């Protein structure tokens, strides 16, 4: 590439990226328009919730337990330096409910469910199934994509709640049963410090937003994948990268909106 090619190449890349962003915006609008009719065909959504939600349960629960264990261990060592070891329950619960539950579940969801969605849609495209549906006057967006979109939005908050709940129980196992913190202090400090609407509610809102973002990215990447094996592989990689960055970026924005303004 010579120097004189640099500027046109830059322009081409920038324009193609902008066009891609515009296409993805249209795609999102199409998805949202297809949601009401999809609610009427809920058996399609239920099948997808099984594929996205049920199949993710093991990894979400196991990760939640592990994160709860580690939070309790690390938190105990730091808190006991200031004589605040009794607040371990509060620390574990707030960390999980506000941040780690939605974010880690979002990252795991992007990796597990997002890649399977992208691969499935990409392979459908490569096998010309989507084109065949259009030939039969069946809109693939409504029949194939919208149920998966709705299923992702439903499954994500449930998975995040399971992650947080299992994590708190894991924190209880390590903190009370292994490290010897008083169980009464563990739960009562937590209950007085965690607010239902400000903490649990905001965590649920975050997980819904992450669910929309991850599912949308996964479906879009699958829909736009090149109809070859390499194309599908690249699309799945892009899904994980873009979803993860989106989750982390949105988390920062949402945290700034929800938790920094004093009420």
């Amino acid at each position, binding site marked *: 590439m010579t120097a004189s090619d640099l500027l046109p190449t830059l322009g081409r890349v920038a324009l193609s990226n902008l066009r891609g962003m515009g296409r993805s915006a249209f795609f999102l609008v199409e998805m949202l328009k297809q949601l009401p009719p999809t609610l009427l065909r809920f*058996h399609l959504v*239920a*099948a997808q*919730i*099984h594929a996205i*939600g*049920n199949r993710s*349960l093991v990894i979400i629960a196991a990760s939640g337990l592990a994160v709860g264990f580690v939070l309790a261990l690390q938190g105990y060592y730091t808190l006991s330096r200031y004589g605040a070891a009794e607040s371990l329950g509060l620390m574990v*619960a707030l960390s999980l*409910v506000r941040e780690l539950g939605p974010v880690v579940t979002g990252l795991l969801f992007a990796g597990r469910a997002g890649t399977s969605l992208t691969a499935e849609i990409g392979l459908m495209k490569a096998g010309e199934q989507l084109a065949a549906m259009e030939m039969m006057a069946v809109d693939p967006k409504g029949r194939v994509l919208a149920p998966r979109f709705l299923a992702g939005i*439903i*499954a994500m*908050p*449930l*998975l995040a*709640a*399971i992650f*947080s*709940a*299992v994590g*708190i129980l894991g924190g209880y196992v390590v903190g009370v049963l292994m490290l010897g913190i008083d169980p009464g202090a563990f*739960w009562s400090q*937590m*209950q*007085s410090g*965690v*607010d*239902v609407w400000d*903490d*649990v509610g905001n965590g*649920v809102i975050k997980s819904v937003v992450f669910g929309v973002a991850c599912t949308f990215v996964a479906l879009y990447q699958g829909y736009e994948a090149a109809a070859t094996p390499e194309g599908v592989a690249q699309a799945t990689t892009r899904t994980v990268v873009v979803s993860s960055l989106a989750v982390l970026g949105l988390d920062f924005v949402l945290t700034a909106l929800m938790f920094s303004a004093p*009420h």
Partner: protein
Amino acid sequence: MGRKAMETLVGGFVLLGTLAVVFLALKAANLTSFNAGPTYTLTASFDNIGGLKVRAPVKSAGVTVGRVTAISLDPKTFQGTVTMQLDQRMQFPDDTSAKILTAGLLGDQYLGLEPGGSDQNLNDGGRIKMTQSAVVLENLIGQFLYNRAAEGGAEKK
């Protein structure tokens, strides 16, 4: 997989997720602490509400009997008006006094009610007449320094 089996599994997953949310709301957070039951509203005016926030607890003898629901500035008297909701089962006499106290030394502030001896009780919409403002640390320090300076001056004489 048969459709019935799959629907059962999905139902189980949704149930599990809902139970997790309910567990978080009840066991991890403070949903059950007060919200159930009928309440009535009282107001009180303070010269300085200090760090009192909406949703701060209202306690009598250390037991939570209500929550602060609104704080506003009265444009005529320039006093802070605190509106609170109390549990209907707790009736207070109309010479009850309200103080803004701090939980612990530097903790969150809450409203403390001390019942008086009157026969009449406060009704819904009633006003607590005797109030004591919050202790403002800066005023306290200023007072302390002023006293020390006054003592020092008196000793020299």
